[in-house]
């Protein structure tokens, strides 16, 4: 297709196409979705690589993420500064991982990071409790929550250190065939 767009250079588009799972058309469409979040902030010309970030409040108000209980963690994991303010690169990266073409291992890696609330590369009991609260909107009782956390660690912890490492998590994901279809946002 002809090079009629003036947002990116040809080389930038090629780089995006090779670094994400999107085609040229989808990248342009995603750029316009990104820009619609803050039109005064984002220029229409990315050829000289401007350094602009969309603040987390606007990212969290996107219809795809608005009601997701993990939206803050998702934004924090994919943003450069770790606070949820995303550049265009982060934005494309996030939706590329969450698209349906991303392989299971890549998704499992980022899912692990999302559920690791304290960023210590292990999912410990407190991380699990926070995940459960977000999943059930705090409606499980203390006892039930504790029991479920114990059961999860029993089932998935293979090296017996009381917390889940990335390998444990990936090993568990291999046995969950629904993972690919649930860890998926269509945009």
């Amino acid at each position: 297709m002809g090079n009629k767009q003036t947002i990116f250079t040809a080389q930038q588009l090629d780089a995006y196409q090779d670094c994400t799972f999107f085609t040229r058309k989808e990248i342009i469409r995603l750029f316009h979705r990104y820009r619609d979040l803050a039109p005064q902030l984002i220029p229409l010309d990315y050829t000289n690589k401007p350094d602009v970030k969309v603040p987390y409040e606007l990212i969290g108000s996107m219809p795809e993420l608005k009601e997701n209980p993990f939206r803050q963690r998702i934004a924090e994991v994919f943003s450069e500064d770790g606070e949820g303010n995303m550049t265009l690169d982060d934005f494309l990266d996030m939706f590329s991982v969450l698209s349906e073409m991303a392989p299971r291992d890549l998704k499992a890696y980022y899912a692990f990071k999302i559920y690791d609330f304290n960023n210590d590369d292990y999912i410990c009991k407190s991380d699990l409790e926070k995940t459960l609260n977000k999943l059930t909107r705090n409606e499980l009782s203390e006892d039930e929550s504790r029991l479920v956390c114990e059961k999860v660690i029993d089932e998935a912890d293979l090296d017996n250190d009381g917390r889940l490492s990335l390998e444990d998590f990936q090993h568990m994901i291999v046995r969950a065939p629904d993972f690919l279809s649930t860890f998926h946002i269509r945009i």
Partner: protein
Amino acid sequence: MDWNGSQRHGSAMGGYPSYPSPQESLRLRRRPTNVADQSSPQFNWNPDRKEDERRQDLKELPLPMALKKSIWQVQQMKIPAVSRWQSWKMQKSKTLKRFRESSGGALAYVALWRRVLQKIGGHFGGGVQSYFLFLRFLVVLNFLSFLLIASFVLVPSIVFQSHNSGNNNTVNISAGKEECTTYDPNPQGLVHFYTYFIDLLTGTGFMEYSYLFYGYYNNTEVITNDFSYNIPLAYLLTAGFYFIFCLICIVIRMGSAVRIAVKTGGKAVGGYSTLVFTGWDYGLQGDRAVRLKQNSIRYQLQVDLEEERIKLKAASLTLAQIVGLYSLRAFLNLIVLALIGGSFYGIFLATEFSQGYQGTDFVSLVVEYLPSIVITAANFLVPFLCDQIALLERHSPSTTVILALLRAVFLRMISLGVLLFTLWSQITCRTAERGTCQPCGYNHTLYPCWETRVGQEMYKLAMFDFITVIAVMILVEFPRRMVVDHCSCKLVKFVGRQEFVVPQNVLGLVYGQTVVWVGALFCPLLPVINTVKFVIIFYCKRITLFYNCRPADRTFRSTSSNFFFLLVLLFGWMLACLTLIYSVAVIHPSMSCGPFLSLTTMWRVVPNSFYSLSDTTREFLLFIGSQAFSVPLFMLSCVVLAYVAALASVYGQSVSLLRAQLKLEGRDKKFLVKQIEELSSVTKRREQNF
């Protein structure tokens, strides 16, 4: 730790970042490994890898975008020294890959109902989605079967019928016994207007002598100089290939379901961790859907915890209590068997009565539909009663579900079998006096053209099933939702909205498909009728799902149940196959209608036309059927089977070995970390002392 892409294929984790091999790990571990080594995988700069592999790797790297882009830039700058031919080849393969990617996206649009199925999966879970996927599979199967039948039987019949001038040889019956060959399907005299409506529902009247039923097809055999077509042979072989085609489709689909079941380790381990980490659907939008999903996850967790508690309690019963419980269960099972036996007897009586009744008014419509009504009523009432009985049996929830499913399957398939058995015993005069079968070999007084009558019975079953689904939707589900939404009394709130029960719905589909398989030989257009019926059912079920149902509290485990549904479908296929073989090989075809007028059994047309083949083909086919070929073939397939079984067991063993190794590595890690800490504290103390 280097991330080596080629090691990825070998390790059991599919791993990335992958494990170093056990020999390397001890050497490489010089410092505590709880530092974030795993979170910074590095790129393999090996220049020998092919270009598209490197491009694929880049997409799959868990690095931030800026790093990926710089790697990409470095890659672009590395211009490999290749000849002109190789660079042309690389360019062409790049464009081909881009083209394939974009066309893959376009092809995804063509997949039938893809978006609808994704939406259903997001809102109601994998279990309900598996029902709709099963329905889509059946629609496609029926449509392809219709194409098969149309191209080999229907279209040639139409063509030869329209060219019914002198130049085709219609083989007429030679030994015409007068009483066996009279068959007059066209109604006499003045007909009331409502008989057309009745005829549409029962397949009689104007519909009987049409392409819909067996009786309309002739045993034309066209033999011109360069083209010959034998309609009876085509009819029989098409029926055979239709069954084999359906079997192949089911087995292929079962294969993929089994592969998933084996990969997940067979049993549903990891229920809690799977639910917590993969239970949330990130594609859900809308406040109501999110709230419903959260409720469903919470309910599922609570039910699982409850089941654990019940299991603990059951393990702690005394001997007297256990004996009492088992005798209660045996007694209740006897009651269930009595109920099922009673419904079989009812079906038998209803079929006998309905076959003997003649009449043309509205009462006769009800009587014609009597077997279908009794089957459907039994299939509603008996599972409901069994569910109530199951409450007394006090099994765990998952066992209750499986037991209810098994009973329902047994009831449905065997009730259909009882109906068929009754029909066939009437046709071959097993219940009537001997005399009526003597002249023609079948009961020619009741059934001048028995194949058409069987086809009509199957047509009526299919129609009634369809009408029941629509009627239940309109008369039960929509009013229930309206009552629940607008009335606020306690009882109504307790009963609540309809829940979409997957197993019963799937059994309904399997039943409908089995009816089509049984009837396809006698009613060749039944697959296309069934395609239309299933398409309408898809849209109706979708409407009722979104308007009337709430998401199931108990999410159905879709992975193992897919295999179970296909197994039940296969069982229905075997029942239909049995009927086909019996009809083709044993019963005398009617002498007054159909393509097999002049033969003693339908199968005879194959040996008869066998002798008209050329010599070499005959020799070849005889050789294939002889022992010289089949015994070595059998031995070869035994060897292949043994090899595949050995391979499967080796893989299973290696998976469990690797799993044990993982556990050992973990303990290894902890031991080494402790040693390192001890050593560092000892050296620190020594330094302090100096």
